[in-house]
């Protein structure tokens, strides 16, 4: 069967900026392999990130709209890790390696962003070893292990959640 012209592998939504966009990656079809941006009504598709020939190894895509940053995890040797690019809205080929996953035989499996604390969380599993979750700053610095999981754990998706907790005994009145 012919390739569908609108293939999309990974997707993320910009919920913060006034013009909401969906970002998605394509690795086949009639369009250039890359990360695209489009309106939520599917109009105005723009090639946002070009030049990463190994986007087929992308495992997870997320955004930090506050910083205007696209963050994605790429598996596969030798450069499996966390990558960043700009949400400029213009065609560009810029992407950079932010943090390498530990060792050659590991698989980066998920990425999530804590926008308030400027942290990127990423998970990977070492071949025949433990799964781990690491974190780094948005520029890739200060990478550190957040938690080590077990050999029998295999992370396939990450999501970051903040829940506002009222003070015990405080009456909340919404006028």
């Amino acid at each position, binding site marked *: *069967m012919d390739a569908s012209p609108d293939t999309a592998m990974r997707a993320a939504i910009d919920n913060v900026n006034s013009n909401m966009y969906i970002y998605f990656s394509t690795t086949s079809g009639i369009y250039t392999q890359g990360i695209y941006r489009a309106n939520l009504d599917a109009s105005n598709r723009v090639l946002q990130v070009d030049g990463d020939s190994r986007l087929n190894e992308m495992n997870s895509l997320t955004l930090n709209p506050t910083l205007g940053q696209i963050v994605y995890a790429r598996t596969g040797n030798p450069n499996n890790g966390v990558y960043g690019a700009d949400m400029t809205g213009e065609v560009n080929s810029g992407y950079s390696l932010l943090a390498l996953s530990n060792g050659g035989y590991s698989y980066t499996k998920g990425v999530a962003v804590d926008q308030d604390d400027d942290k990127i969380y990423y998970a990977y599993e070492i071949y025949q070893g433990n799964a781990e979750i690491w974190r780094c700053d948005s520029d890739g610095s200060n990478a550190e292990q957040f938690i080590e999981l077990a050999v029998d754990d295999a992370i396939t998706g990450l999501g*970051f959640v*903040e829940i506002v907790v009222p003070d015990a005994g405080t009456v909340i009145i919404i006028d």
Partner: protein
Amino acid sequence: MRSNKTNMALMVTFVVVQLSTFMAFGGVDKYLYFSNHEANTIERIKMNNSTPAREVILTGRDAMELAADSDAGYIFWMDTYRVWRAELDGANPTQLTTCGWPYSLAVDTVNEELYWSDKQSAQKNSLLWWCRYNCIGRLSRYCHACSNRQC
């Protein structure tokens, strides 16, 4: 001259405004959710403590992708052939719709819409779909090639 009733109403309004101005919150609990494909669990890690606390919130879930909406109070995940929703503590898991082989899941927290990509069995490449959070069983294809969200 204002009546006593008017004065009372103004006073009540003033008190309510003052209370809401001083409305206090205990803080923000931060969680990192993850799907554990090997253990068939969905788990979360409370991040406020110096030692991250791991908690299994759902078992028997072969989740491949996961996304969350703090404001709406939902997590979403995909297993092979299905899209699911549950509350943040794992309560009330509900199947939203069916899908093919799951690739990616993203939430529009403003419009409360869910986007996902999957590879249907008859197609070579993955396609993008969307539906409302409460649009159980209904979905539309997001076709960027023909600039149509109702393809």
